[in-house]
């Protein structure tokens, strides 16, 4: 039984125009379920809890990363699966599951390929994908990236590049698994579940730290990449430091806000750990594709 938690404000209210097409497509695929609209922050969590209590086994977040995050926090210990129809301004989570457009999301829901991911706890919050700290978090707060037109992108790039050039690196200390500590000046830090990057990998935290790119050209490329993909830049090969862990404690001087899946969710110092709680996600990523990719690399 499907339960759709719809955020009518997501993506500047684009659900208004999509609603009929989306519902008829879900009908065609035979996965029409209950449809509920949120009215404010925290609603998606409450609705998810209520839906699970009434016996729904698949909760679909229709919105952006914020909506998905609220749904995750409402799942609790239940065995329900989570699906995403990405219509928000930030659809980082869906993109990491291989879901880019709403028609593709509908197909994925009907196919119901499920992958289990461990939740990550950051203080009292649970999240699934990525925690960021540093330049990208500041960028999310200062530059509106919802408009993707050419002029808007140019303006966003100018703003972001200026912010990146003037960004003062954060003094940071990280305690890792009670085994070692690490000190550095960071430009950007990301923490994610490595399984999100590769479904064949174990559930473990991958911590990536990027230093200031320094060179103007590299800085520009990094800013552009961040703006376009809205994916934590530090998670790719440009990270100057990266390692795996199960639990880290992050401190910065001065204390700074952290962002979890695109939403401000606390301040440093903060403990981040992998939990035993697992959530099954409807994903478009096929494990066989990863096996082929790995085989072709070796």
């Amino acid at each position, binding site marked *: 039984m499907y339960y759709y938690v719809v955020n009518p404000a997501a993506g500047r209210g684009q659900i208004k125009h999509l609603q009929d097409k989306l519902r008829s497509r879900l009908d065609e695929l035979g996965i029409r379920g209950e449809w509920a609209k949120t009215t404010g922050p925290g609603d998606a969590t409450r609705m998810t809890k209520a839906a699970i209590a009434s016996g729904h086994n698949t909760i679909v977040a229709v919105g952006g990363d914020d909506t998905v995050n609220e749904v995750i926090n409402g799942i609790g210990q239940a065995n329900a699966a989570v699906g995403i129809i990405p219509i928000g301004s930030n659809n980082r989570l869906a993109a990491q599951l291989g879901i880019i457009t709403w028609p593709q999301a509908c197909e994925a829901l009907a196919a119901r390929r499920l992958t289990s991911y461990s939740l990550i706890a950051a203080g009292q919050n649970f999240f699934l994908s990525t925690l960021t700290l540093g330049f990208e978090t500041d960028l999310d707060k200062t530059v509106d990236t919802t408009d993707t037109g050419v002029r808007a992108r140019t303006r966003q790039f100018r703003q972001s590049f200026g912010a990146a050039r003037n960004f003062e690196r954060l003094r940071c200390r990280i305690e890792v698994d009670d*085994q070692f500590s690490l000190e550095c000046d960071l430009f950007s830090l990301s923490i994610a579940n490595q399984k999100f990057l590769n479904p064949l990998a174990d559930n473990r935290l991958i911590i990536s*730290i990027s*230093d200031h790119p320094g060179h103007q050209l590299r800085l520009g490329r990094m800013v552009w990449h961040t703006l376009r993909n809205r994916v934590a830049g530090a998670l790719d*090969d440009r990270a*100057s*430091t*990266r*390692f795996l862990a199960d639990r880290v404690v992050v401190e910065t001087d001065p204390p700074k806000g952290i962002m979890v899946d695109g939403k401000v969710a606390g301040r440093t110092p903060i403990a981040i750990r992998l939990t035993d709680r697992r959530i099954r996600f409807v994903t478009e990523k096929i494990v066989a594709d990863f096996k082929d990719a790995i085989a072709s690399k070796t």
Partner: protein
Amino acid sequence: MARKAHEDALGVAGAETVIGTGVIVHGNLESESDIAIDGTLDGSVKTKGNVIVGVNANIKANIHATSIIIAGTVKGNVTSEGETSILETGHLVGDVDASGLAITSGGIFVGRSLVSSPQRVELGEAPEPAPIETDSSVKDRKSSRDHES
């Protein structure tokens, strides 16, 4: 392959655990796979994979790995099941216990080395042991050589 490893050591790329330039680590770094260090580390390093010490690295630690490439500075004992290599920018102060040791011209090594080749295990039937030469057989050969001349 050797060239790739050399480039990796100078640029610390490709490993799962990477400690970049300017990063200071205190404690025990353990991993199941390759570790590349280009920062400062005080503690110990242990992995089932390989360790690459980059040119900017400054390490005070014992290192235990499958193979070790040193392009930076290491003060500590180094144990590797495979080869330990000190590149032209490498500086190792400590003992080496490895199955091979390679020092490129310019590399500095201050310490003792214990290099032991891994034992070769032959499969199948053992070859016939060579006959042991007794004093008499040596004398026989000598007398036959004298006779020929």
